[in-house]
């Protein structure tokens, strides 16, 4: 196997004295979609923030395309070709949709490429074109999520980090957004690290998955196999098989550690 595009080794990240990430390691191969699943508070956002440089790990390393980036500022990391779509969209509320997209391309010096990519994202999300001159703050949650993804794409990244793109959206919108995520991956060859609570959707689109629990990776496998696992079915997909209750559930949890 060739060296992964992103390699995270044994990172430990703290909020003051609180250890939120307790020695997490994972890899993202070039061109793949990798997902990290976890319940609320598991540490998914913290992992992404550590990767993109918003937070520095106390220990461990983050290697992107052969370069160690764990001490870099986020604007530097982004210039290396990694775009972060943060949890909660974080659009610039008083700028227009178009200006938001232009800010996504802030680091680029190829106006023709930027114009072309603007058309591409308008093609992915036609509603953004309709609302191009509206303030981003006036968009619905789903539209803001589309804008956040498009804005990250405008940087023409080689890797995208997506933090719970399905959060707070209707199933139909989630489906639409995930379809585009797959297209971005297939058509543009962008590697994707996707963090989700919505395990069902994430496991369907991703190649490989990790399960994060209270700051630790407790399971790692191909998504095909993860979808078959009893624990995943029960705790993340909400499918309960008859008899798999009570004591057994408790025992199952134990097997992850």
């Amino acid at each position: 196997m060739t060296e992964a595009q992103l390699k995270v080794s044994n990172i430990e990240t703290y909020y003051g004295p609180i250890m939120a990430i307790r020695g997490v390691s994972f890899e993202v191969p070039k061109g793949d979609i990798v997902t990290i699943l976890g319940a609320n508070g598991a540490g998914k956002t913290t992992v992404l923030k550590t990767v993109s440089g918003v937070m520095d790990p106390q220990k461990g390393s983050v290697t992107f395309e052969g370069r160690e980036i764990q001490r870099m500022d986020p604007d530097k990391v982004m210039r290396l070709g990694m775009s972060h779509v943060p949890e909660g969209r974080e659009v610039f509320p008083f700028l227009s949709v178009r200006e938001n997209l232009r800010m996504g391309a802030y680091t680029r010096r190829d106006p023709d490429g930027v114009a072309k990519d603007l058309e591409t994202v308008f093609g992915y999300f036609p509603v953004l074109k309709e609302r191009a001159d509206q303030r981003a703050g006036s968009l619905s949650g789903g539209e803001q999520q589309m804008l956040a993804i498009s804005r990250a794409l405008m940087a023409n990244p080689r890797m995208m980090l997506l933090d719970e793109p399905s959060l707070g959206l209707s199933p139909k919108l989630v489906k639409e957004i995930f379809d585009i995520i797959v297209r971005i991956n297939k058509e543009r060859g962008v590697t994707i690290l996707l963090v989700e609570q919505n395990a069902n959707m994430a496991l369907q689109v991703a190649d490989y998955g990790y399960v994060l629990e209270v700051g630790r990776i407790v399971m790692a496998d191909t998504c095909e196999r993860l979808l078959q696992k009893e624990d995943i079915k029960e705790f993340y997909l909400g499918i309960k098989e008859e008899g798999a209750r009570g004591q057994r559930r408790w025992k199952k949890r134990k097997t992850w550690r």
Partner: protein
Amino acid sequence: MLLNGVAVGCIYGLVALGFVLIYKATELVNFAQGDLLMLGAFVAYMAIAWWGWDYWLGFGLAVVVVALFGALLDRSVLRKVIGQPQFAVVMLTIGLGAMFRTFASVTWGSEIYTLTTPFDGKTVIAGATFSDQYLSIVVGTILLCGTLYAFFNYTRIGVAMQATSQNQLAAYYMGIPVKLIFSFIWAISAATAAVAGILLAPVTLIDINMGLAVALKAFAAAVLGGFGSIPGALVGGIVIGLIELFAGRFLPDGFKDAAPYVVLLLMLAVRPQGLFGSLGRKKV
């Protein structure tokens, strides 16, 4: 007559604009804003009166010097205190202001100076006579605000400054050099104060305390406009300028300086978010 009030109000507006720009971007209030105004006036005076420079050259030099000084302040001092309690930062900027006044009195002396400008005549517009001094303030303010408006809306770095003020974290994610942008915003605020100081110089004369009273009223103007709104700061400045003018004219002595604050208090009681402010708090 009315023009005088508007002109003085423009000065308050420009200084208030400096408060608001820095506050929106970095969430700190720079109480040394008035002293940057004073420095601008002194540098221009030094270049024009002592070195015999052309007025406009001296003007340009003062604006550039004070702008660079503003950026340097951000880099060397204020960057270090981001995240400290507001109170500490307020004390720091007040202290900086006092240092600037000391510096000015050591460098230029504590006399009162008169800056000769090309604006000592009168202009007749539509039958009314206006003093060029006051007219130059209004025209200068309009030009400066127009330039800033175009800069913030039509240049890449200008829009990036807005973006950084609206959502600093997202700006980082876009690869916007946030720290550089902060220094740039400080430079613009300082330059705005310097322009205000030079325009004001022929009216109030130049001395080391000229910024103090202006800064207090400009602060009131910024609050009146809903601290955080740029048009609000300018309108707030002009409103305060006019209130002062009318109070000085129609009310007994002493009311002139108090009237703006009385109006400010009334305003805050009725509409606490200010003229142009919104109650929604911005996200950090």
